[in-house]
């Protein structure tokens, strides 16, 4: 830890404790570099995470459009593809190598860069200090480092797409031997080295961020903000950070062993397998399953790292726009906690068909199915929050309701896949693709969209355009179901994932039309995301200006800050908190902000 960091934070702590002082010391000497580039203001870092995440979302989404083009039109040629992809699309058709590279990079980028960094990086940074009543993070310097490690990871990942042998192409899980042997495939050469470097940088970024979020939530809350007065967003982001801090190091350990196998000839994962053109390996006794254990010990918590922030934001947005307190606040916290604990105990359900001991498998089935309990509690509470609410259908609310719909649809298929017996048939089929895209991918994207639409006025002091927001919502939700719903049937029919061309398989020829349909919808949905992008950047500069400090009539602290909050968030004193975050429709009042003292004649909730 550097001197400056310590000194700076001492200043921040002192400022935090002295109420009533004016805090102009943060505003002097703000150059372009210190304000927009190497900023230590959590709000600017949040925007950096968001926009970098959006760039990756566009790239990752474009990759899916490209490989859907191959899946939907396996016989057609598109000369313009050769123009942009060169040798990766010789004759206008994506090559098998390029197809695998696209699938792999799409997965890596969406899971880690968009839905981890872009989602919790953005909203943990933005909301934690604003909603708990802190001037900034526990360590603003570490927070800045967290972003720049992510940025470096992005650059390395991006550069891997331009090396001669292409980016890594062995699937986003990077199982050995494809990831451990340079000779295994073109993408296993330099592309894999860059993938590992990028992911290592990303792990560092996540850890720096996560440590900060935890320390901030536990230590920097304003006066009166007890843990049980926190908005559910903060609880969700807190447990997200806990998951990340405890699971990413294990992935890192797995990567270290992988690096040794790749570069130093050790035999952690590699055994004397035979490679075409190379011969038998000198390695002895390694186990690829060992990597899978280490990977999925992160990999499963990772899906909750992606999902929990969306759940938290959705809880908040549903409550605000139903003008009702969240139903079952403590049950919501309890269920997030239960999910966090269970997340660490279910990783082997990704490995039912690896030769896992069936008895062990049955234990993991039980633990996996247990997750249905807290998930059902959450769904029940969301629905009862909506029940007889005075609902305001803002775009944020639409996406929040869409999230609940997707979470139910995708969650139910999780019960199928969690059974090891069913999994023998469904493993590695399109059923899995459909399940995790709906419940984790699209649902979390919906949570992220809900968050963006809802907090955009706080971020940029302008509103997003509502009409474009509604078009964005309806096309995306209809499209999401049209894309992924049919995949369930394909999966049940045994159609395996990751194949390059299904038209040559007698059993899967029947899906040619369906595949074309899915690809067409995918392109339409992608086009609508571009509409959202336009809305986002247009509204930053030209959107309708926010004139009310509290545009959504919400109770939480971020809406007590000025419309254009400076570094330090509140001018003058940090607000003091007197009540929980969900006093909506209480005692005949539409809402009571958290800063309002409890009146003498007020009823108890």
């Amino acid at each position: 830890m550097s001197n400056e960091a310590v000194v700076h934070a001492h200043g921040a702590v002192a400022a935090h404790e002295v109420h009533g002082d004016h805090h102009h010391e943060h505003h002097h000497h703000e150059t372009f570099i210190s304000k927009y580039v190497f900023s230590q203001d959590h709000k600017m870092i949040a925007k950096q995470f968001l926009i970098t995440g959006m760039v990756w979302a566009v790239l990752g989404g474009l990759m899916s459009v490209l490989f859907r083009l191959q899946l939907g039109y396996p016989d057609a040629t598109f000369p313009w593809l050769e123009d942009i992809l060169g040798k990766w699309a010789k004759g206008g058709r994506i090559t098998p190598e390029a197809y695998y590279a696209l699938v792999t990079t799409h997965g890596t980028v969406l899971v880690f860069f968009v839905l981890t960094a872009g989602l919790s990086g953005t909203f943990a940074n933005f909301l934690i200090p604003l909603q708990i009543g802190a001037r900034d993070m526990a360590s603003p310097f570490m927070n800045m480092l967290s972003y720049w490690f992510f940025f470096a990871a992005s650059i390395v990942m991006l550069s891997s797409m331009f090396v001669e042998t292409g980016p890594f192409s062995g699937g986003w899980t990077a199982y050995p031997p494809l990831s451990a042997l340079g000779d295994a495939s073109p993408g296993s050469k330099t592309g894999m080295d860059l993938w590992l470097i990028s992911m290592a940088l990303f792990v560092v970024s996540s850890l720096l961020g996560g440590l900060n979020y935890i320390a901030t939530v536990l230590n920097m809350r304003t006066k009166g903000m007890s843990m049980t007065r926190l908005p559910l967003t903060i609880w969700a982001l807190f447990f997200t950070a806990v998951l990340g801090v405890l699971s990413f190091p294990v992935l890192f350990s797995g990567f270290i062993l992988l690096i040794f196998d790749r570069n130093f000839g050790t035999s952690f994962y590699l055994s004397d397998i035979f490679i075409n053109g190379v011969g038998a390996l000198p390695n002895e006794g390694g186990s690829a399953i060992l990597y899978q254990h280490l990977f999925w010990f992160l990999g499963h918590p990772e899906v909750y790292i992606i999902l929990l922030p969306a759940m938290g934001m959705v809880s908040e947005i549903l409550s605000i726009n139903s003008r009702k307190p969240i139903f079952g606040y403590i049950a919501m916290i309890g269920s997030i906690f239960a999910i966090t604990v269970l997340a660490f105990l279910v990783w082997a359900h990704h490995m039912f068909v690896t030769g896992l001991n069936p008895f062990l498998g049955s234990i993991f089935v039980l633990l996996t199915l247990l997750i249905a309990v807290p998930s059902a509690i959450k769904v029940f509470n969301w629905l009862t929050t909506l029940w007889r609410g005075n609902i305001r259908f803002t775009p944020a609310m639409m996406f929040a309701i869409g999230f609940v719909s997707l979470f139910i649809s995708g969650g139910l298929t999780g019960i199928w896949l969690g059974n090891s017996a069913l999994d023998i048939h469904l493993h590695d089929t399109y059923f899995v693709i459909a399940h995790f895209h709906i419940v984790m991918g699209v649902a979390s994207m919906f949570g992220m969209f809900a968050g963006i639409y809802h907090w955009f006025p706080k971020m940029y002091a302008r509103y997003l355009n509502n009409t474009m927001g509604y078009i964005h919502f309806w096309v995306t939700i209809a499209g999401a179901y049209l894309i992924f719903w049919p995949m369930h049937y394909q999966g049940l029919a045994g159609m395996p994932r990751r194949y390059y061309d299904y038209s040559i398989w007698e059993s899967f020829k029947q899906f040619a039309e369906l595949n074309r349909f899915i690809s067409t919808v995918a392109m339409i949905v992608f086009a609508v995301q571009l509409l959202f992008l336009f809305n986002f950047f247009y509204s930053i500069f030209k959107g309708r200006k926010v004139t009310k400090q509290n545009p959504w009539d919400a109770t939480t602290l971020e809406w007590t800050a000025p419309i254009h909050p400076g570094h330090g968030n509140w001018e003058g004193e940090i607000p003091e908190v007197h009540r929980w975050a969900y006093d909506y429709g209480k005692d005949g009042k539409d809402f009571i902000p958290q800063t309002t003292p409890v009146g003498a004649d007020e009823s108890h909730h």
Partner: protein
Amino acid sequence: MTSSADQPKRIHPHKFTLWVAMGSIVMAFAGLTSAYIVKKNQSSWLEFDLPVLFWYSTAVIIISSITIHLAVKSFKAREMGRYRNLITITAILGVLFILLQYLGFRDLEARNIALVGAKSNSAASFLLVITGLHMLHVLGGVIALLVIFARAFNKRVKSYSSVPVEMAATYWHFVDILWIYLFVFYNWIG
């Protein structure tokens, strides 16, 4: 946890961050030592004796924990001369520890136990990776000591906050305990 907002004296946020970070590091080593156990129960595991030097390095790191503990005490008593001496000794002991570990690996190689490469066995490779990762963490502690060391010798700016010193000490004890765990693990558990 529910009412820490009302407690009169809260833990310094940086100290707290350090504790969470140590939990994170524990997970990395837990992952590696679990992998070690899994691997050991499979075929072709090479049994060999640990280098004797690891006993000496264990003694060194335990002594360094005592010296840094005394350093914190003398910092709080504002005995700056003693404090400077003690952190210097601690840093030297840290470097000595890393050196002894390195010599231990040289010893293994001298006994024809390959750590890496085609002829290596995962038993030795695991020892290298886990111990090597721990050595890097000790190195991080040495760097932290150098930072507060530079501060202790700074004539212009005097620092009275004991937080950085206490944090360095906490971390130092942590890597010490971590090594004792690994040492016990290699010898008697794994």
